[in-house]
């Protein structure tokens, strides 16, 4: 029944008034002619109201004349009439569309900036900084690179552990979590200096505390190098009996040790390179979140290719995430180049030297040993390097 009602609403119907003494005859005639009338109601002694579909209404008119009834339309109902009405009221339609467009347009701006963070001071400072970086009320929301601002915030505020930017409607919401910094050892907290790495002690200068190791001695990670437990008085055996002779101090000092680093790399003798052939093909890709719809013009005619995204157009921003990407497929060709032992070794060396630079950042290199050898299957060269550097391995650790 609902379906029939919907059908009638969709195609439109009219509510009519039937005036005449023989209205019943009209109803009988209509029923015989298979005209469908419904909701027939007696208004008064010679008036009826009824509902009838538009198509049937036109067939009813001649019958009405025959049965000497008069029909008048009271109301027109249905989508058909609604559209008809709208067609006549063009400026209303334009206005309605303009209204929707205006709402959409206005909602594509940032109208408020919120920072959620328990720290009031930080909150104000972040808002101030965001303003300086161009996040203001009234800016267009689609162009905002959230990652960029998150990075900027994290570099600006070192004590932030986490930051998240969300654009919800016209609100720009920044969520911040402050770092819980590990408590710095205060000047006067008693502590030891321990080894952060394995190595051989080169030099030890105890500024405060007592050195436990001597130059030349091998230490492993975690060993106490300078202790903060200083024994007063000469007699060590006495100390254990009456612990009052031990003084806890904040140890300080420089412990330099020789430390080794090892690096290795394997370079194949035959190098496979991908070189673009110069052929390429462009195509449009519609991306909805993680789903990708391709509009290829046929298949990609290349066996080996690389995909490059030339341009990303955000149609709908993040929560919906509809993107139109311009993609270029570049045909590639593989070429094999025989390097030979000599060239491969040189390549390995270049890599190792770059690694060396990284390690020797600020430390002195005392020894460097590089070795190149052919792999057992004679397909590649293995370059290995051992370097010895002198660096400060001291690390403070609180005495429990």
């Amino acid at each position, binding site marked *: 029944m609902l379906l029939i009602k919907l059908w009638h609403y969709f195609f439109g119907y009219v509510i009519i008034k039937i005036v005449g003494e023989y*209205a*019943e005859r009209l*109803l*009988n005639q*209509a*029923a*015989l002619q*298979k005209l*469908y*009338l*419904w*909701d*027939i*109601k*007696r208004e008064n002694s010679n008036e*009826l109201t*009824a509902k009838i579909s538009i198509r049937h209404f036109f067939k009813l008119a001649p019958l009405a004349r025959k049965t000497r009834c008069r029909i008048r339309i009271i109301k027109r109902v249905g989508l058909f009439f609604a559209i008809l009405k709208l067609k006549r009221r063009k400026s209303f339609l334009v206005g309605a569309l303009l209204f929707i467009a205006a709402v959409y347009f206005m909602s594509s701006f940032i109208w408020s900036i919120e920072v959620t963070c328990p720290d009031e001071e930080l909150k104000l400072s972040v808002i101030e900084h965001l303003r300086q970086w161009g996040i203001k009320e009234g800016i267009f929301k689609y162009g905002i690179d959230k990652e960029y601002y998150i990075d900027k915030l994290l570099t600006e505020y070192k004590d932030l552990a986490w930051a998240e930017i969300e654009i919800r409607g016209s609100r720009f919401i920044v969520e911040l979590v402050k770092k819980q910094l590990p408590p710095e050892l205060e000047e006067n907290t008693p502590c030891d200096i321990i080894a952060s790495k394995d190595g051989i002690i080169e030099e030890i200068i105890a500024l405060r505390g007592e050195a436990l190791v001597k130059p030349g001695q091998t230490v492993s990670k975690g060993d106490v190098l300078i202790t903060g437990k200083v024994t007063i008085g000469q007699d060590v055996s006495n100390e254990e009996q009456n612990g009052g002779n031990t003084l806890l101090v904040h140890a300080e000092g420089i412990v330099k040790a020789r430390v080794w680093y090892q690096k290795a790399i394997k370079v194949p003798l035959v190098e496979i390179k991908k070189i673009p052939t110069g052929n390429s093909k462009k195509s449009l890709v519609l991306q909805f979140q993680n789903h990708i719809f391709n509009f290829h013009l046929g298949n990609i005619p290349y066996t080996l290719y690389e995909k490059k995204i030339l341009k990303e157009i955000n149609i709908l921003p993040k929560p919906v995430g509809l993107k139109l990407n311009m993609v270029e497929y570049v045909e590639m060709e593989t070429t094999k180049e025989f390097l030979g032992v000599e060239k491969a070794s040189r390549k390995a060396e270049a890599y190792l030297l770059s690694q060396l630079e990284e390690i020797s950042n600020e430390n002195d290199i005392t020894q460097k040993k590089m070795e190149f050898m052919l792999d057992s299957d004679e397909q590649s060269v293995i370059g290995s390097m051992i370097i010895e550097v002198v660096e400060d391995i001291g690390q403070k650790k609180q005495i429990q």
Partner: protein
Amino acid sequence: MSEIIKRKISDALDLPQDIILNVPRVVVTGKIAVFIENHKGIVEYNSDSVKINTSVGVVCIKGKQLLIKTIVADEITVEGEISAVEFEE
């Protein structure tokens, strides 16, 4: 064929009587609706009585605020506060 034979056939074959005998089928739903199948047109319609012609005479539905919900060639549904359904010869 006479009425008696028809009725006997319908009895014997267990066929619905309204089809064999060409009589109306009147379904009364509570006090709110009357459905008549196989009618022969409306004789009179007022908000407190509806008279419908059938092969067995006029069926008179009495009540208040009666409304002809639907009417097609052989079916009619009357809704409202129904108080009586009478058969008039």
